[in-house]
């Protein structure tokens, strides 16, 4: 670890200007705080959190739709636990449950499928959130539902994909980033090819990185090596888990069930082809098409800066609500709800450990 830190100092002397790196994945955000990585970095290296927290980027309208589904007659909505407190335009799934909506927490979409098999009289909908780490599991569950002939199982997909979001960030020109710390487990599935444009079109060195302290320091060192040499490539630091080709089987199953569509990201807006829609062949599993939930989403305006935080334009402490009107106990925006959200991570470490931000 010491050698890595010493090498980073040398590289920064060579680069001779401040360097801004974006960690795309929310788990990296937490790991960077947990390992105290910022304290080990040379002067001039700034880490920005990116849009890689699925809870944080789920649009208000999509939460409202999930709530409308949960309140429909004869329907059970199943979800990962971390979506429960995320605010829609008025309420969260937690509120909907308190008001009589049938909402159940599951660990896996397969648990939702098994539940549907048991409760044949109900329509069981899985609220499908998450990036490419998660979406193949949902695709696999749809296949399994077909195989087992479970007719009352549906999904409401708000899945998102990482590369289009990075493309949109760079093309917006709003954020200055010199390189990307790419997500470890999303890349286990998609491999490195989908990130090629970061280097070839935008000249940004980017490294798929693991989650322990040495992984993260090595990933950052590898980006600095490229910057110092004036190079831009996509590299893998996390070679013990990630292969350049990703997981072809998972990619195939994903492609069989879903096709890309434009998707709305909370605080960011619509990003072309960054969402996953259930393919026509599985249209009978698509809760949005089958149940046609009626949703009235009101535009809620608050001073919440989640959107700018997710884009790396602001850091959480730049937001006027941070730590005052917005805390993990009473979150205004989703970046404070999720334990992987940047605001929650900043709040915790600023408040509790006074760590360098």
């Amino acid at each position, binding site marked *: 670890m010491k050698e890595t830190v010493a090498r980073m100092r040398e590289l920064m002397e060579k680069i001779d200007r401040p360097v801004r790196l974006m960690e795309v994945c929310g788990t990296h955000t937490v790991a960077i705080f947990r390992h105290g990585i910022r304290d080990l970095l040379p002067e001039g290296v700034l880490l920005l959190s990116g849009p890689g927290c699925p809870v944080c980027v789920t649009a208000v309208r999509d939460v409202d739709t999930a709530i409308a589904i949960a309140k429909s007659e004869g329907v059970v909505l199943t979800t990962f636990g971390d979506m429960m407190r995320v605010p829609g335009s008025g309420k969260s799934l937690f509120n909907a449950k308190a008001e009589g909506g049938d909402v159940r927490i599951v660990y896996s979409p397969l648990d939702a499928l098994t539940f549907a098999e048991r409760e044949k009289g109900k329509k069981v909908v899985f609220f499908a959130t998450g990036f490419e780490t998660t979406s193949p599991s949902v695709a696999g569950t749809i296949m399994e539902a077909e195989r087992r002939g479970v007719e009352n199982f549906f999904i409401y997909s708000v899945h998102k994909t990482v590369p289009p979001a990075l493309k949109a960030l760079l093309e917006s020109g709003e954020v200055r980033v010199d390189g990307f710390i790419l997500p470890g487990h999303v890349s286990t599935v998609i491999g490195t090819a989908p990130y090629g444009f970061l280097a070839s079109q935008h000249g940004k060195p980017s490294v798929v990185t693991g989650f322990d302290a040495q992984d993260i320091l090595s990933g950052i060192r590898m980006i600095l090596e490229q910057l110092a040499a004036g190079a831009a490539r996509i590299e893998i630091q996390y070679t013990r888990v990630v292969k350049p080709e990703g997981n072809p089987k998972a990619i195939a199953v994903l492609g069989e069930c879903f096709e890309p569509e434009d998707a709305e990201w909370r605080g960011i807006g619509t990003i072309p082809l960054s969402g996953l829609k259930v393919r026509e062949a599985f249209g009978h599993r698509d809760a949005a098409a089958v149940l046609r939930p009626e949703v009235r989403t009101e535009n809620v305006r608050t001073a919440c800066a989640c959107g700018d935080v997710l884009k790396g334009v602001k850091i959480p402490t730049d937001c006027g609500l941070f730590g005052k009107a917005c805390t*993990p106990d009473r979150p205004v925006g989703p970046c404070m709800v999720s334990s992987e959200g940047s605001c929650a991570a900043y709040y915790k470490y600023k408040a509790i450990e006074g760590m360098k931000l």
Partner: protein
Amino acid sequence: MCLAIPSRIVEREDLRAVVDVYGARREINLMLMPEEVGVGDYVLVHAGFAIQKVERDAARDALKVISSIIEEVSREDRNAAETQPVARSPRGRDAC
């Protein structure tokens, strides 16, 4: 969060397997696995599916780190649960 947890296969039958992770047993699905795996192998598990094979030593190292992150996150979730009467489960996900 999209954490995926390295888990050891202790039973296997077709595409179903039972894994041991931190002493707990869970049934998982092998449909997404790009290569053949058997009893004793470690696989990365996310939301009930194995998504990649992991070498034994790498898996053991990763388990240490991941348990510390999960501990962190679930402690926060416990704290949140004390102030909000809601059962929060960790997402069956291990890092993005």
